[in-house]
């Protein structure tokens, strides 16, 4: 009896410890929001929200100062769109190749190779964009700048291909065989089955993968810091240098800006916008999977 009692005590203690560990994740979320909001608060005490959201000039350090965040947002969106234009078609193509065409053996060798792409540190991608892709682009567009959105965006696309292809592949694999067989029975070719049956059936997965991929691109930091430049502007010209929200945060962090100054607080205001954007996109991605996804 007594032994049983102690046995359960041990179990309950560990259960409590494990629950605390799991609950910690909620604490972390609260801390994230708290740390961003509390510091951004100091920023918005001096800069009006409307200037921040609608201003089209970002110059928090150099005078005359101006705190319109739109140039950073537009720079971020520009790079992310370029990345998506590369990664979505390629990622979906790779997924379709692996799930519909490739043999089991090809799949087994291919996937780890793609995983390598996902595991390369982003500093390395930054170096690659700056030292390889930009010089190559220079041959095609002679007036491209050393730091430009195009090169960063293309390499970012390369970086998120594995993410998009693996989510899409999962969605395609879960399309039941009977649907494909029905297509073949009606005389369709493999391409017609892949494009007209599998692709629409896996659409929710593809949309979710694209949203999550773009969200990843928005939050990516070192690649754009190294290759896309540090010149915040509203220009939508991919051959020019821009600055993303993340790159601005790094730029300011590199110098040890004193705690509590307006400059120091700007990174939290920008960080909050970044956090909100990625959170909305990730939630949207999950919503698409759970609500649109057809369960077979």
């Amino acid at each position, binding site marked *: 009896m007594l032994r049983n009692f102690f046995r*359960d005590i041990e179990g309950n203690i560990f259960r409590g410890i494990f629950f605390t560990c799991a609950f910690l*994740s909620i604490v972390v979320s609260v801390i994230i929001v708290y*740390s961003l909001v509390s510091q951004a608060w100091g920023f918005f005490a001096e800069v009006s929200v409307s200037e921040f959201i609608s201003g089209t000039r970002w110059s928090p350090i150099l005078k005359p100062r101006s705190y319109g965040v739109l140039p950073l947002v537009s720079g971020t969106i520009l790079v992310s769109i370029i990345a998506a234009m590369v990664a979505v078609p390629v990622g979906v193509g790779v997924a379709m190749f*692996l799930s519909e065409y490739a043999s089991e053996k090809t799949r087994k060798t291919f996937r780890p190779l793609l995983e390598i792409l996902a*595991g*390369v540190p982003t500093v390395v991608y930054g170096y690659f964009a700056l030292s*390889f892709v930009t010089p190559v682009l220079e041959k095609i567009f002679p007036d491209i700048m050393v730091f430009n959105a195009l090169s960063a965006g293309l390499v970012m696309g390369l970086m998120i291909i594995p993410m998009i292809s693996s989510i899409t592949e999962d969605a395609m694999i879960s399309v039941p065989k009977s649907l494909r067989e029905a297509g073949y029975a009606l*005389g369709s070719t493999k391409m017609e089955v892949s494009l007209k049956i599998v692709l629409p059936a896996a659409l929710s997965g593809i949309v979710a993968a694209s949203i999550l991929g773009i969200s990843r691109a928005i939050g990516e930091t070192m690649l754009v810091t190294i290759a896309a430049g540090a010149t915040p502007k509203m220009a939508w010209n991919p051959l020019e240098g821009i600055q993303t929200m993340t790159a601005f945060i790094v730029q300011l962090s590199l110098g040890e800006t004193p705690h509590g100054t307006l400059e120091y607080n700007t990174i939290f205001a920008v960080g909050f916008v970044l956090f909100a954007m990625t959170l909305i996109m990730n939630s949207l991605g999950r919503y698409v999977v759970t609500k649109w996804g057809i369960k077979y």
Partner: protein
Amino acid sequence: MENNIFHRNIKRRQNVGKLFYIILLLFSLIGLIGLSALLIQILRDGLPYLSTNIIFNYPSRHIDQAGLKSALFGTLWILSLTALISLPIGMGAAIYLEEFAKKNWITNFIEINIGNLAGVPSIVYGLLGLTIFVELLGLGRVVLAGALTMTLLILPIIILSTRESIKAVPNSYREAALALGATKWQMVKRVVLPIAFPGFLTGAILAMSRAIGESAPMIAISALVYITFIPSHAMDRFTVLPIQIFNWISRPQAEFAGLAAAGIIVLLTVLLLMNAVAVYFRNRYQVKSNE
């Protein structure tokens, strides 16, 4: 007439299908071509600068003397402390969610929340660390603050991978233990965890290799990137490999780009070794379960 519908077009449709196959194949090769171009470029730039100096010397303004010593040890410090803190917490959370949690709103909330945390950009974790660990707790820009920040960053990854390895334990094992009269905790401790352990190791190593490559949050914490000493305790200032590489990339002189490439070779070699170990564990585990 109706029979002809298929026959009339079938050759053309099959040809289009072949073309489509080739396009997909090319798409699939883009990733590999990109990866090869990246590796070739880095080896070409970096190999001439790769010497023992780069491992045994401190950073320096003189290119022929500059090295990664302080960054290597900084990475080692961050990695050990992060592993020490994050692995127990991450595994505990995963064990709770897989084995103990009831299906209720709070479990649901925790799961959604972990999914959200995994999607938070790493630089935001840097800002968190800056506010909470560096400023609020007053740790300063030190190793411990970096390791705590890194812990929060890789916690969702560890939880997700640990849950996978617990899920892989067949239910019949659990039922056998319970049928023999084990309590839930005894079942978890003596049956589930030992079987899931190789999976833990693989997940842990992969999470750590993610931590090695992270630089943005470490820049937010560490800021100062010119450090010529080895951190001797957890409250020392530090730098890590990717920060030192970033520092070299952002120098205007071309020689420093070569040095950066050489640094990248060192970084990628470390990552490759870690992944090889992870694959080794994964394979050993698979052999075991086949017996």
